[in-house]
Structures are given as C-alpha cells and as structure tokens.
C-alpha cells in the first residue's frame, strides 16, 4: 500500500512549514463488464494507486497528487506545489479549518458474497439480466465493482484506514412498438459484496417494468394540463431530494466556492430556521447508513461521519459542511468532505440522502386523491444551478381517479420551484427505497457514489403538463 511514502509526504510538508497537512493514499481494485445487445463489449480489470495531499501554507490552500511512488519525484512535486501555493498568496484566500478531533481508527465493510470472484460469476449475472430484458429491443447493461483501500493521515495526529467494497449496476433499455419507443434507465449501488444482487431483485423487477412500459407505450396519452395531485414513487422522491434539498444545502455552494461550474444556491447562510417544505417533510443525509452506496464512517478530511438533518419538518435545519465551510460559520464540520479519488481535493458532498418515512401506507396515500398523476419513475430531469426550478418527466406514469389508478399517462411533466414542491407535500409513506447515482461536482469533475431515496409522497394541487 506504500504507507511509508504517504508518511514521507506528510513529513515533507511539515518540514516545509505547512501549518496543516493531510495525506490520502488510495488503492483501488476494480472490474467492469458491459453487455450491449447480448454481446460482452467491455471486460476490464483495473488496479490503481496514488497519493493526494492537501496543506495550508501562509493560510493558502494547496493540493498535490502523484501516482509515481518515487521519493525524488515526490520531493520535486512538493517543492513545485509549495512554490505555486505561496505565489497564489498574492491574491489568495486565507483559509481557516474548523478544529476537529484526531482519530486513529481502522474500519471496513464486510462482504457476504465476495467481490474477488472470477469474471464468469459477474458476466453470468449480466447475461441473466440481459435474458430477462429481451422485451427491450436495445439493451446496454453495465456491472462494475471495486474495493477502495484508504490510508489517511494528517498533521493533527489522525490515522484512518478504511476498506470500502462497492458494486454498481445500471441499465439502458429501449422498448419499441409500432414505430414508437420508450426508454428506461436505472442505477443501483451498494457498499458491500455481491449479496446486493439478491436484494436488488432485478430479474423479477426488470421484466415487470418492461411489460408495463410496452403496454403503456401503445395506449398512454398526454394529460390535459392543469392542477391536480401528484404521487411520487421512491425514485422520483429520491431524485427530488438529491437535486433540490441535498445540493442547495452544500455550504460551499452557499459561500460561492463552486460558483463557476456546479453553481451556487438559492439558500443563504441566514436561512437556518426558514420554512421551505411542509411539516411532514424531514430530509437527512446519512453516510453511516449501512450498505448505502455513499457509505463511509470518516470523511476525506478525517472527520467522523454522522447523520445530518437537512430539513426538519419542512424547516432548514443544517447544511452539509467540510472543515472550511464549518470554520466560516464558526461551527464543527459534520463530515461531508469527499473526493472521488486520490487525485482530487475533497469537496462538500452528499452521501445517502433521503426523506424520512411517514405514517401512511400506500393505499392511504392513493385514497386521498380525487384526480392526480402517479409518477412511478422518471427519465428526463434537470434543475437550475441555484436549485430553484426543476423538471421531472414521468416514464411509467398513471392517472389516478378517485383513489385508483385508471390508465397510463404519456410523459407527464412536473416543472416546479423547490418551495412549490416541498411545500405541497401532505403525506409521506412508510416504505423506504433507494436508488443510486454518480453525483457530479467540481472542476475537474468529480463523480461520487451516492444513494437517494425515500418513500412515496403525495403532493397537492400541482400544475402538471
């Protein structure tokens, strides 16, 4: 693992008068398989390792990364990086980090069905999935896994060793009938081993979904635009949580640090305590959720992870922080710093973000709807860079009349502001479901594994197109 080289980098930075330094050594073993229309197009294995280090000198922030474990080359890079960072002080921000406890800890996630298997085991899984998706004319199926081993040390005495195995699957399916087509994309992710395959239950779910999509493709009609109720399935609840609650609560956006690309936020730092949603909505981000795709126990600044209650009964409760944004607000970090590899700086990120369950069962949620649309899942979605106005287009979607599903609806559009969405929720279901995403942020771009989800929700009086 080259821990000695990581120790050497930390020593070099301290010797060169860095006021603070941290070093992350990461070793990643992974496999990728991809099946296109039943043909195995990608069969890959990867083994990468490298070191990323972050430090403060004259209160200016520097980062360096290298995958060549040669002390001379590392020394040259450190010297070069220090020159650049010192020079940046001419117009550099003076960075403060929140005071945090040092941790010495080792943790790992157990795999019940090991990732370290021969490729046949994984290729067979994809073939099974392909076989049960034959109703789709075009099929692109992807399965990947990796085991990341991290060694984190900092100048405050932390030493955190982590081993995180992850499995990820996604599929793009195209159903065609009578010259029309409909597509379905879904991603699942899991921190752990291949025991996830059983839990995902894809071999039953995918044929059912495709059957419904094929049927709906022929008979679904556009809805007459107007105000009506909406019921969101867990996938739609999840994407809305991620986009319009998780992202705008990232404190680095709020302070403008990500303004160039990922954008800023409609939420301001004074907004703690402000009502944005209805009383029945509580939203959390929880990296400690067992087997969540965004699972971790210590973040990439060495801060102990914990559940963050972002929206409590509709009211802004806390933001996602790293040590820099926490210091700006005069508080402690809540452990939201993540980097997608040794070669990237940690940014404020989500992990597993979801609406907490309510008291309603599914029947009760439907019973209360005279006229509405059930968005079981979605394809197209987007949101502006302040996270104010968003769009979700239903994929498998149905008209609800007098509490019952009556017929399929073609691509209903929910295009709404963030307070409009969360303020109109009047019922939250009991059953939790999660889907996975690779969340993008930063320049250079960092895609990180995230879970998003929640239960079914009912929204009142929404304009649907």
């Amino acid at each position, binding site marked *: 693992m080259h821990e000695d080289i990581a120790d050497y980098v930390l020593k070099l930075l301290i010797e060169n008068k860095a006021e603070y330094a941290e070093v992350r050594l990461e070793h990643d073993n992974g496999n990728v398989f991809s099946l296109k229309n039943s043909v195995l197009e990608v069969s890959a294995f990867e*083994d990468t390792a490298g070191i990323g280090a972050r430090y403060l000198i004259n209160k200016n922030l520097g980062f360096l990364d290298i*995958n060549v474990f040669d002390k001379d080359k590392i020394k040259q890079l450190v010297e070069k990086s220090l020159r*650049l960072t010192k020079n940046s002080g001419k*117009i550099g921000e003076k960075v403060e980090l929140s005071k945090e406890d040092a941790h010495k800890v080792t943790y790992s996630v157990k795999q019940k069905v090991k990732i370290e298997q021969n490729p046949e085991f994984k290729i067979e899984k994809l073939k099974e999935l392909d076989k049960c998706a034959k109703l789709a*004319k*075009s099929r692109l199926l992807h399965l990947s896994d990796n085991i990341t081993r991290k060694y984190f040390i900092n100048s405050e005495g932390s030493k955190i060793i982590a081993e995180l195995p992850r499995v990820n699957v996604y599929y793009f399916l195209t159903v065609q009938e009578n010259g029309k087509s409909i597509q379905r994309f879904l991603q699942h992710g899991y921190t752990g081993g291949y025991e996830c395959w059983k839990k995902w239950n894809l071999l039953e779910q995918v044929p059912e979904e495709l059957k419904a999509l094929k049927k709906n493709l022929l008979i679904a009609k556009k809805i007459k635009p107007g105000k009506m109720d909406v019921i969101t399935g867990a996938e739609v609840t999840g994407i809305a949580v991620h986009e319009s609650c998780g992202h705008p609560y990232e404190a680095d956006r709020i302070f*403008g640090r990500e303004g160039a690309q990922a954008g800023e936020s409609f939420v301001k730092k004074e907004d703690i305590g402000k009502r944005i949603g209805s009383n029945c909505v509580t939203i959390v981000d929880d990296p400690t959720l067992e087997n969540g795709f965004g699972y971790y126990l210590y973040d990439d600044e060495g801060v102990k992870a914990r559940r963050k209650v972002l929206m409590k009964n509709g009211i802004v409760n806390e933001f996602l922080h790293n040590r820099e944004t926490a210091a700006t607000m005069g508080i402690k970090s809540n452990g939201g710093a993540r980097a997608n590899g040794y070669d990237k700086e940690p940014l404020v990120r989500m992990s597993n973000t979801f609406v907490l369950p309510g008291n309603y069962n599914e029947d009760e949620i439907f019973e209360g709807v005279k006229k509405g649309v059930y968005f079981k899942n979605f394809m197209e979605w987007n949101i502006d860079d302040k996270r104010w*106005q968003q*769009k979700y287009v239903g994929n498998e979607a149905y008209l609800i009349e007098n509490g019952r599903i009556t017929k399929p609806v073609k691509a209903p559009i929910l295009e709404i502001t963030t307070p409009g969405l969360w303020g109109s929720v009047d019922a939250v279901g009991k059953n939790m479901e999660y889907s996975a995403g690779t969340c993008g942020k930063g320049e250079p771009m960092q895609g990180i594994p995230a879970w998003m989800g929640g239960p079914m929700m009912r929204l009142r009086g929404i304009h649907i197109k």
Partner: protein
Amino acid sequence: MRIAYYTRDKLLKLGASDVLVKYGQVEASHVKFSNNQIVKTGSEVLESLSVFASFKGRLVFTNLKNLNEKSADELVKQIGKFVKHVPVNKEYKGIAREKFSYKKLEDCYDKKIIDLDEVDIVRKGINRALEKAERTNGVFDRTVGKALLVGSNGVEREEEFTGVYFSLRSFYKDGSGHSNSCSRMLNKLEVEKSGEESGTLARESVNPVNGVAGKYDIVFGTMPTCVLVNHFMEHASIGNVEAGLSFLSGKLGKDVGKVTIADYGNMPNGYGSSEFDEEGVPTRKTNVIEDGKLKTYLHNTSSALRHKTKTTGNAGLINPNAWNIVLEKGKCEQGNVEDIKRGLYISNIWYTRYQNYATGDFSTIPRDAAFIIENGQFKQAVKNIRISDNMLNILKNIDRVGKEVKQLRNWESDISAVVPEILVRNVNVSRAEG
C-alpha cells in the same frame, strides 16, 4: 517508456492476437478561484499504462499500476487467467492493420506552457472581468505531457502535448456571465477576452424578469453551441447508435439540417488534437454532417468492418469519440437579430437531459445571461426558463451561423469545439409553475 514495448511483446508471446499498449505521462497545474481570490492550487504528476488485448475475440482492457518489468510480468499472467473466463465477442472485428504514416501536429506543443506564472494569468482574467463585474469564479489549467502507443499492428508512435484552459464566470448583482478559452499554445489562450466577455454579460443581465413559455427563435452564443454540437457528435458515435441511444440512428445519408459539422482530429491548435487514435490510425478531418446531410457515423476499425465502411480515425476501442468538433462558420454578423420578431439570446446552458435518446426528446436549462429579443432588438434580461424540445429539431432548425468562431470547452461537454453563434428557429421554451 520501454515498459510499453515490453508489455506488448509479453502479451504477444502469451498468444494475444491483437495488442495495444498506451503509455501516458502528465505534469499539470491547476488554479481555482472564487469570489476574486485563489482558493486552491493543484499540482500533479501522473503516469499510466493502459492495455488492450484480444485473444481471438476474447477481449481484456486493463492497466499496469507499477511501471516495471516485474509488475508487467504479473499483469500478463493475470490477463492470461482473466481471458479464460471471458466469452468471445463475435462483434469484434480486430484493430487497424495498415502501415500508417503520420504528420506532426501543427501548433499543439508550446514550451512556454512548461513553466509559466499561473497566478499572473488568473489575476489578469479576474481584473479584466472586474472592470464590469463584482465577483468572479473559475479555473485555470495547465497540462504538459507525452503519449506513446505501441501495438501488435506495428504502430509505435509517440507525441508530446501541451494545453491551457481558462474558465471564468462573473457575477454582478443578480446578473451573471460565463466565458472560457482553451488552447494548445499559450499565446492563443484568450484570458482577458474571456474576462471581458463574462463581465459584460454579467453587467448586462441584471434585473432579469421571469420568462414566458412558448415558441422562440433562439440565438445561442458559443458556450451553448459547444454543448449542442457535443450532443450531436455523441449521438453520431456508432457505439451509441448500436445501443439505441442516438437520435441520428437510421438517418445516414438523410438530411438532418443545413449545416456542416466536422470532427477535426489533427486540427492545428485543436485542444483535443492527437496524431493518432487509440489503435494508431492517423486522425483527420471528417465531415459528419455535410451541408445538412448525415455523411457518416464515427467509427473505429472494428465497428467500421461491422457496418461495411471505413474507420474515421475515432477509436475509442469501445466507443468511437470526436477529437475536436468544428461547426463550419457562416456569414452572419455576431449579434445580428434584425429579423427576429420573438426571440431569445442564450449565453449558456447546463443540465441537458433526455427523455428518450432514440427520439432526441430533451430539455436543458439556460444559465447566466439570457435576453428577450423583440422585433429585431435586444430587450430585457430573462430568467427561470427551460428549453424543452427535440435535439433533431434543434439541429434541423439551425437557420443561420455566425462568421466569428471560438475554440472552447464546456463543463458538461468533454470535447472542445470551434463554434460560432447559431440561430435556431421555433424552439419550445417552458417554465416552472408553482
């Protein structure tokens, strides 16, 4: 770099029928600024060795972590074990086998980029923007590197490269503007021009009104045009066509508009230029859409053989990709909106997502400066709108192309493009209600 030859030879001894090994070396620096201050510097040294091998159609893609012979020996053993479990890919038709000659790229390597003052460059960009704006955010990237490709097909070619990229977003009250520039040569990087453009856009876009849904003729500036041509080219990759993820599927030889869009792999000063593709085929200029007709998809050798055509020099061994996208310039003066009765000027877009890749139904969100155009004149700045339309319609309805082009990248589009402003007629705009 000897390790690349060593690994290739070991794989051939193991019985591989096709081998491609690519060595890469990068030395880079990065400066990120926010609220007019540098908030982070980055310095990087990376080496990589990517490996592709086919054993009579049993394919393996991998990499060598430690670049020494002992590790290469271990990797080759591992590959030998791995491929035994991999089924034959019957759609794989091999790599290029001709003997190629290469031409050195023009204006793609600049020694001045090896050692420069990153902070001074950033300061100049910020200062120019602040002549009009209040706040600036952005990045500056500098990259120096070399690549070597060796293959079982006799390819043994090395190239050196440099690149610089500057991106700046300006804010003034509730207005914002964004501009960027990328180049292989330092003297062609437009730092101060980017600062001025973004600052001006920010200043002029204050007090935006909420937009109204409907049909508009839209002038897209170079930033959103870069995103749109990236989508056109992504859908022209045969990999996406085969996967059912392209609105250009079934359109070969048919009219898809009026414009000419090319991939120009060996373009002088092209930010994405390379002498050769991933299998050693020399890159070239390929008109993918010529005077509105879809002439070809982007191919590698294997996909070309499957579709009874020739490679376009765009390997990607899995998915062929464009190198530099060029939208052929037109005759229109920049900012000419004389004949637009009800229109919009859009300076940037983001978050482009599809409801159906095969039909092209999509939406995207204008961000930064956007303006209402009425009866041939720029009016009020506008906000909170969304373009909700079909990508094939957008392509077909490009009615006018500007005569000033710019090389740039966009955050959500990987491939650099040389594009002018474009006018697209009759575009559907929606907005959030409630």
